[in-house]
């Protein structure tokens, strides 16, 4: 059966941000443009604006996270919202309450927005499908599926440094198979018109039909990095080392870790990005992470502006 994109209402207005897939470029650009206007706010002495005054935002983190949760919290507070943080991994779910029971209970406390992180692909979609129509859901990462605000802040960063998307070659490097960040990046990049998106990884870290997402597949850093303008590194989860995905962190670093030598294969003005937290010496060398071409810390700063933009577009008092 054909389902309407669950993120948009019948007029094509954004109701939830669940994935970058299927969103028109105009909506993505509107988020980026709105974020631009908030970058100034975050640099002012008085950092608050009243767009979400009186709104209640629940951070529902069913999976631990420091950085993402914190940036959502800061973003909400700068918009003058009331923020409630719930680490559900250690509360209700361990008592056997289901995901939707938890959400229904919180809805009864007059929530306006849920920011959801969950270990299962599709959790945010499930919640969005079952909340009252006036509640908005932002996916802050679901399983291996999507992490749209991370992808949007990455797009914001790329536009800041490269000005537009139309002439870029972008490489995403690392554990594509398990990465919600990579999937959201790929959809955002292709929607925004990046002509060439590459993924570089050993075959054990690539989903079977990844080329169907519109990317070129490389297994060799030397070939894959040639002519690249933007390098998007992915975090390699430690647990991947335990299974049969990879033999060792050392071998991975040798062939896929980003060192200054490998970075030199890309364009000389290429930028290096990473969604954090980094495994130095596994997927990225400190000399690169802290080097001239790294934009990893600006990414974090822009993350706040981008999350402010998403929240204000979804639930802002009509400006």
């Amino acid at each position, binding site marked *: *059966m054909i*389902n309407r994109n*669950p993120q948009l209402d019948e007029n094509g207005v954004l109701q939830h941000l669940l994935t970058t*897939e299927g969103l028109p470029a105009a909506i993505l650009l509107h988020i980026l443009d709105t974020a631009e206007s908030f970058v100034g706010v975050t640099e002012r002495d008085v950092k608050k604006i009243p767009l979400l005054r009186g709104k209640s935002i629940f951070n529902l983190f069913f999976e631990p996270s420091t950085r993402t949760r914190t940036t959502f919290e800061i973003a909400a507070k700068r918009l003058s919202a009331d923020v409630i943080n719930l680490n559900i991994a250690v509360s209700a779910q361990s008592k056997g309450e*289901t*995901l*939707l029971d938890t959400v229904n209970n919180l809805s009864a406390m007059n929530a306006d927005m849920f920011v959801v992180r*969950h270990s*299962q*692909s*599709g*959790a945010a*979609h*499930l919640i969005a499908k*079952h909340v009252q129509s006036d509640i908005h859901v932002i996916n802050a990462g*679901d*399983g*291996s*599926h*999507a992490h749209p605000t991370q992808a949007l802040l990455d797009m914001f960063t790329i536009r800041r440094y490269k000005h537009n998307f139309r002439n870029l070659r972008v490489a995403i490097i690392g554990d594509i198979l*398990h990465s*919600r960040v990579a*999937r959201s990046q790929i959809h955002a990049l292709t929607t925004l018109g990046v002509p060439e998106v590459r993924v570089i990884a050993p075959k054990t870290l690539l*989903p*079977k*039909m*990844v080329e*169907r*997402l519109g990317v070129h597949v490389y297994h060799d850093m030397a070939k894959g990095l040639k002519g690249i303008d933007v390098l998007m590194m992915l975090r390699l989860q430690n647990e991947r080392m335990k299974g049969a995905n990879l033999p060792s962190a050392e071998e991975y670093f040798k062939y896929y870790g980003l060192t200054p030598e490998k970075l030199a294969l890309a364009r000389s003005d290429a930028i290096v990005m990473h969604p954090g937290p980094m495994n130095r010496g596994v997927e990225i060398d400190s000399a690169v992470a802290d080097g001239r071409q790294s934009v990893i810390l600006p990414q974090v700063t822009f993350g706040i502006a981008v999350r402010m933009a998403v929240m204000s577009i979804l639930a802002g008092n009509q400006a």
Partner: protein
Amino acid sequence: MKIHIKNGRLIDPKNGVDAVQDLFVAKGKIVAIGHPPNEFQASRVIDAQSLIVCPGLVDLSVRLREPGLEYRATLESEMSAAVAGGVTSIACPPDTDPPLDEPGLVEMLKHRAKNLNQAHVYPIGALTQGLKGERLTEMAELYDAGCVVFGQPDGLLPNLRVLMQAMRYASTFDFSVWLRPQEISLTGDGVAHDGEVATRLGLLTVPICAETIAISNIILLTKEIGVKVHLCRVSSAEGLAMIRAAKQQGLPITCDVTVNHLHLSDMDIGFFDSNCHLMPPLRSSSDREALRQGLMDGTVDAICSDHAPVDEDAKLLPFAQSEIGATGVELLLPLTLKWGAEMRLSLSKAVAKMTSEPARILGINAGHLSIGSSADICIFDPDHYWKVTPMAILSQGKNTPFMGMELPGRVRYTLVNGHIVYEQ
């Protein structure tokens, strides 16, 4: 009770009958076709004008959820659902709690089912104790208790040594062995076909080779041992090609597909629709096409509903955590008719896939309208389209990917042993 079914179009694939003829039932048996026996006084006349009169359907996979899983469904609810779907004989997989691995459990199930006086229940005995794949069950005792075949139609296959011994032991008594081909070490926590949809949605996958490797092993063991094997719920084009080749070699292998895999593909998962969380997973549209063709050319012997009622809460979870299965016993007829119509098949050919063919696989005397046989009869309106809604479904499970769809074929009467057990 004597029943006269008049003016109906009789479709009896096994006997090659497709004609408007009256049918007469007495003492639970079909006593005459065409003309009434001498001094036949019907106590009930059913006017089957513009309806199809065919053998009661035989469904090779219906979970009744008893014993042990009554919160999902009960024998009462699912037996009512079966006859509402025109199904008069059902094979029940052993994946109950506890599994059907002891004669006492099987006897109890048979007894409970018999008291309900509805469809005939044929338990599939567990091939190994607790379905754990370690020790053989008492197959001969289980047979005496009422099991007709033995298998591991769900869950893990035993390791190859145990499987070989189980097949060898079953062949001693000429029992057939039912297996769902899936290599567990390649399945892991996979929930979806290894294709574009799983790639987009970030779901763990069950590769096709999990099925083909298992089929290959089973074919080789069948060749070695000579046991009758039925492969449950084949899902892939490649797997089917292997089965076709094995059949051409004359191996005693049969297989079935589910109504779900006949009509759906992984694309139907859409945005994580947990009603499409099925096992084996829904595969690509080209696999689906191969299953539809395989059924036409006889590689696939039968269609089953793979009925698995799930309580609503168990589906209101993220896709991978939601429970596997779909309710289906009431959709076997409509979805088979839909397939037949789409393939431009005669009604008789479509009806065979849910009557005479599954009866042959199960080894039971059912699925035909021969004079003298048990009056298990389904009378349905092939042109009546009805909407699948929670109200329209009697099963306690309301979980189906077909919810909301309009499907052809509504059962009007179901007879079991000459009794009208359902009418609408």
